[in-house]
């Protein structure tokens, strides 16, 4: 390549740039008004979930359920006479990005509220942003509790609405010797801390407690320990693919779920479908929503979702929470007569009982949700057969009194 050729090439490149800028300038046309007509202004809300990365498999479906709720809301006239315009952002399975995007949504897009988050790490990363700007986050996933902020609406289950009821159910069934198995991070550690206190108080025994690094694949020693301990049931807080390794290796070692019961807290309809339901069939799960709930409200929810996202789509607990969060926000906005976060969160706690797809729900003064606990058993087709439900919706309690005595959640 000689210099002259290079010179020509640069010349062409320059001309191309120039032409492009002229075309771009022509396209901009500054005098045309922006597309939404000014007489029907929309209100923006943020939808912030991981659309890429490891968490995408779970969070994309929650985003879908949130979008379904926003569509239905707009079809019935929107909020305070305004159409609701979702601004969708991707948290990319990275807590730091969740925090950046939350700030972008609040400052740049000026959203009225944000629906989003899944992992506790993402929630903890967004918390200071929402507190700094006094905005409002609606968080749809069950979590370990031990947190209470006036700028978050925690609709997912608190420990006393999922793991503790599951333990009560196990005791009723006569499973008193319990083995705790989890991935090594904050949710399993905190959940098991609470479980241990309750097991001891109810005169059961902790047969053993084991943690495997996130993504761990070898369970040979853990399975030996379980065999040695001889528990009645395993309480499983393993995350993601580790579940497949565990169930495969346990079955090969002569411990399929039919012989040694397993109660899982991170396997819902989506995960069961992705893993292959036949592998985990027969195991138990505790949630506040199952797709198989036989109520008119749920049938409507399932039908609406499948009409929009495909007839084979699986629905699960965090998706139901993503959906009801939008509906609760709209109701609170109506009650408050304002989009102002402080007024909305106070109004949300004063809403009446609502017959939702999950059963009767209502936000409590601590900004978490009264909800019913269910225990289901996974069938080979990926559905859960509901075996048990709490007598009434349970009062949410972020601070378990046995594990964190003296702490309580007071929100003004």
């Amino acid at each position, binding site marked *: 390549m000689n210099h002259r050729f290079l010179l020509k090439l640069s010349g062409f490149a320059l001309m191309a740039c120039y032409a492009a800028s002229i075309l771009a300038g022509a396209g901009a046309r500054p005098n045309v008004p922006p597309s939404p007509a000014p007489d029907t202004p929309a209100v923006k809300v943020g939808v912030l979930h991981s659309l890429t990365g490891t968490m995408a498999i779970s969070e994309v479906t929650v985003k879908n359920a949130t979008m379904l709720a926003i569509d239905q809301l707009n079809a019935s006239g929107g909020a305070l006479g305004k159409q609701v315009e979702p601004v969708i952002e991707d948290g990319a399975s990275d807590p730091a990005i969740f925090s950046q995007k939350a700030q972008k949504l609040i400052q740049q897009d000026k959203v009225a509220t944000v629906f989003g988050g899944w992992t506790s790490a993402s929630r903890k990363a967004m918390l200071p942003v929402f507190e700094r700007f006094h905005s409002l986050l609606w968080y749809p996933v069950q979590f370990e509790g031990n947190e209470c902020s006036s700028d978050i609406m925690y609709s997912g289950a608190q420990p006393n609405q999922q793991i503790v009821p599951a333990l009560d159910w196990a005791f009723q069934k006569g499973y008193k010797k319990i083995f705790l198995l989890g991935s090594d991070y904050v949710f399993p550690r905190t959940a098991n801390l609470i479980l241990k206190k309750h097991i001891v108080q109810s005169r059961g025994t902790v047969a053993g407690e084991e943690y*495997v690094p996130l*993504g761990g*694949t070898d369970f040979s*020693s853990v399975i030996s320990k379980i065999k040695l301990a001889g528990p009645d049931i395993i309480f499983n807080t393993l995350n993601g693919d580790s579940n*497949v390794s565990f169930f495969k*290796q346990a079955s090969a*070692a*002569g411990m399929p779920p039919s012989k040694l019961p397993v109660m899982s807290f991170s396997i819902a309809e989506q995960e069961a479908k992705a*893993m292959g339901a036949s592998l985990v069939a027969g195991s138990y799960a505790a949630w506040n929503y199952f797709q198989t709930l036989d109520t008119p409200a749920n049938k409507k929810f399932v039908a609406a979702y499948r009409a929009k996202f495909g007839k084979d789509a699986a629905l699960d607990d965090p998706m139901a929470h993503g959906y009801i969060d939008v509906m609760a926000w709209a109701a609170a906005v109506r009650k408050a007569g304002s989009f102002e976060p402080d007024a909305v969160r106070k109004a949300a706690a004063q809403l009446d009982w609502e017959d939702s797809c999950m059963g009767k729900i209502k936000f409590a003064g601590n900004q978490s949700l009264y909800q019913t606990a269910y225990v289901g058993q996974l069938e080979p087709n990926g559905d859960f057969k509901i075996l048990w439900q709490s007598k009434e919706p349970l009062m949410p309690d972020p601070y378990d009194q046995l594990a964190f005595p003296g702490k309580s959640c007071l929100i003004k």
Partner: protein
Amino acid sequence: MGEGGVIAGQIFNGISVASILLLAALGLALSFGVMNVINMAHGEMLMLGGYLSYLACRVLPGPGGFLVALAVAFGGTFLFGALLEVIVIRRLYGRPLDTLLATWGISLILQQGARSLFGPIGVEVVAPHWLNGSVSMHGTLAGLDLPYVRLFIIVLAIAVLGLVALFIAKTAWGLRLRAVHQDREMAEALGVNTRTVDLVVFALGAGVAGLAGSVLALISPVTPTVGQSYIVYAFLVVIVGGLGSLVGTALAALLVGLFSCSLQIFTSVSLADVLLLVLVILFIQFRPKGIVVRRSRAIEA
């Protein structure tokens, strides 16, 4: 299950973990010992083997499908390894840092490629029915079950080790390989085509790693990052075993497998990892060249 059963069970588990480690580390030890190349993308050969067997099992779901899958995994990763050697590794000989960086980049590309093709959730290879079930022990070892899958992995690892040893000790290619290992310049001067030897060594190492990925798929899902969880242990095995020694690698794999399994039963899985690393660091202090020290100009140079 009695005390004896637990100890026997953990020894069995240790040997089974060691078999996978051996298959994963063999290729690493070969390319490190003979070519002085540290291949950071070696873990991805494991992953590739896993996905290839997944695809093979989908095409041939029958009981013999998994045996075909093993062959496909070996052949596929062998060819991929050869391609990698010709396109990248060959051009970077004598520049260990560049090789390190380039192979790390390849590892990232392969991981992301797998994520885009197969998704972030693992895919599953269902073990054929003749591998379902287990041998149940009686008498003092009652309660102990030895799953067929793990027995199969152990047998396969021993067979592969034997075949590779035979290849190196008895074939003309093995002779050339040993010559290059001992003194690259002299072998070259005597007419050995070192480039072809390098190509064969690297491809063979990749192929064996592919086999490891294939059997690993029987006990855990194949994910884009499956190689990452084994590559660290494979490096530990190579370091403890001594560079380029087959016997050393086998012994080291056994040692690491047994150690981690016995540590796991007395402590927790996370703590066992920490203790294993501490032990390896201590070991290196006393035997910096590993279990088996081979005199080789290739390494000393």
